[in-house]
């Protein structure tokens, strides 16, 4: 890592730390949403980006986390911090099971992507049908804003929590680029058959990475449930969350450390700026889906011009400088 990049990282870190003390609550919430989006994007990136196991249904882990902690807390009276750990364990377990079923059956590429989508749908229908999730009625967490309840009155703390999650996910991604495990994943992504020929236990590595990704995603689910204090099957297992994770990573750059963060900054920024513009610029006041239109145009441009995501801009510049 060059000195210039290191300086940029330190400045970025310092800016993120002091940011909530300089801006109003609304922008703190936007910052929180951005880091949260980056975190769940990184959870997807670990398996989808580094290991190349593209999934359309990561909401299955997100929802598992959201429901596990909520049920343990609301129905069984567990402390939310403890429930959070249990949710991650459950996310890991679901990740492990799905990976074993899918990879044992030899599913890869688009077949694996579709099977994850199917799992997310099955979980959503199950959550809609079984009694302990209260079905479509959803589950409400009692508002009691105390840190020991993982609820905070001041939006600064959810912001820092999301920031911490994002940092942890960046550390995990960084470790993947530096570890043998990460190297094996990249080998699998590039050519699974060649990786197997080199002696890599492809099945075991893929199960491990989906277990890790499941645990991370489940942590995001619990964070969401504690922030909004309500989960229902569509919120937890709906396609929206899967798409959000996939998009921030694709826009930022899949298989890179900072891709999901850059993608989250870009997409959250565009969404907020266009929503703000639609609210204050008279000519745009009646253009309600403005943010969606701009969102769509930007996606098309990125896919067309930057197929490796926004991170490829930095790579190009680095190449030019070299």
């Amino acid at each position, binding site marked *: 890592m060059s000195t210039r990049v290191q300086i940029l990282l330190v400045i970025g870190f310092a800016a993120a730390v002091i940011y909530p003390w300089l801006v*109003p609550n609304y922008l703190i919430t936007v910052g929180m*949403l951005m880091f949260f989006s980056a975190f769940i994007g990184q959870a997807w990136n670990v398996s989808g980006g580094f290991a190349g196991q593209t999934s359309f249904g990561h909401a299955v882990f997100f929802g598992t986390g959201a429901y596990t902690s909520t049920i343990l807390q609301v129905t069984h009276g567990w402390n939310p911090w403890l429930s959070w750990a249990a949710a991650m364990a459950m996310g890991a377990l679901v990740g492990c099971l799905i990976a074993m079923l899918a990879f044992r059956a030899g599913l890869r590429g688009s077949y694996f992507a579709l099977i994850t989508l199917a799992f997310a749908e099955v979980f959503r229908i199950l959550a809609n*049908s079984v009694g302990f999730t209260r079905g479509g*009625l959803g589950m409400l967490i009692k*508002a009691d804003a105390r840190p020991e309840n993982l609820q905070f009155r001041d939006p600064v703390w959810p912001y820092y929590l999301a920031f911490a999650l994002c940092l942890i996910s960046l550390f995990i991604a960084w470790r993947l680029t530096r570890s043998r495990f990460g190297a094996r994943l990249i080998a699998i992504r590039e050519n699974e058959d060649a990786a197997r020929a080199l002696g890599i236990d492809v099945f075991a590595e893929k199960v491990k990475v989906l277990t890790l990704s499941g645990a991370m995603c489940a942590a995001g689910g619990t964070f969401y449930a504690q922030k*909004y204090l309500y989960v229902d099957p*569509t919120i937890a297992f709906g396609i929206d969350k899967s798409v959000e994770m996939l998009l921030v990573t694709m826009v930022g750059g899949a298989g890179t450390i900072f891709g999901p963060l850059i993608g989250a900054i870009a997409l959250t920024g565009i969404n907020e700026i266009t929503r703000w513009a*639609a*609210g204050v610029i008279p000519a745009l006041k009646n253009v*309600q889906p403005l943010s969606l239109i701009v969102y769509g145009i930007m996606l098309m441009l990125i896919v067309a011009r930057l197929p490796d995501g926004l991170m490829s801009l930095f790579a190009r510049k680095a190449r030019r400088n070299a």
Partner: protein
Amino acid sequence: MAKKQKFPVSRRGFIAGSGVLAAGTMGFPLIGGAQAKSVKVGIIHPVTGFVAFAGSQGRMGATMAVEDINKAGGIKSMGGAKLEPLFGDSQSKVEVGVAEVEKMNEQGVAAYIGCYQSPVGIAASQAASKYGTPFLIDVGASDLIVSRGLKNVFRLKPGFGACVDQGIDLLSSLNKSANNVAKSAVIVHESSEFGTGTAKLLAGKLPGINIAVKEVIAHDNPTRNFDNIALRIRSLQPDLVMMSNYQDEYTLLARTLYQQKVNVAGFFSILGGGFNYKFVQAMPDVSQYMMDVNHWYNPKSAKAQEMKKRVVATGALFTFEVYLAYTVVSLLADALEHAGSADKEKLTAALNASTFVPELMPYGPTKFVNGQNQGGRPGVMQAIKGDILLVAPDDVAEAKAVFPKPKL
């Protein structure tokens, strides 16, 4: 020779100039805002997303109310202060609804109105409670909204519990007068909080009036094909089909049941999102004799009739979202009038003590208990020859219900 510049302004100069201009532009309304006395009201609806039509209708009603109140001189006890609406789009997403609450709080809103979808309303009103800002629910059926002990939440309209009770009472009396022709029912509902909650209550109460529930069928949002559900219903041969769904699914389900010739004694919906003028006028044969327990205006109110003409003249539909949002803004204005201030505590106290008479609705004066208005009641409507007529409550009814409906 010096290289000719493409632009006469340098990049740094442009950025610095833009910054000054942006700061000036952003600062100007603040100065202007200080000159005009106004009360900011946050109005949050899903104007994009899968319930965008309903959300837009709500925004239209709220806009009309703000215009009327301001035209009539604003809040007189506050020296004629005007209402200043700040519109927010929840995009049908919980987190976006909450972000709108935070944004509007920074802009100094005195109260919020919204949010159409119960999950968004639950989370958004929870966020508003941190600031003690009153949150008035215009549409949002879930009874969870007013059962959390939040002091800042007020709902004018009845929730699905009250709608089911009223619907069951009417259905029972209709059935008795028709020699108990209906002995069984199938319930079809959308799978979120509103539809599931309504269906659960119905399934529990129908056996109490001697109607057996043959099956409860849930469907997703959106669903674009109801053939399987219609065929299943036909095979079950119920006497009644009871529906609780949003606009598009309601219309599609009704049309598919008609196409599949599902012959029943009655279609009876609770909070049928698509039971409106658009539906009955576009599909008079499909909708003929369908009944719905829902929010409805008071047809005997001259003000409601005048408003209906106004809305229709613009080419829009006079749906319940319009007059509920209108009425809730009027309720807020009345509370501001009594509070004489936009102070949140005084406004909350004024809402708690409110005896506002919602002229457009078949309601009595407001009386809030734990945030739920006790004076609200749903209406029971029936589609007859391309029109919608109120058949209950008796004091405002326009017609007598036709039950059982003639066979197809």
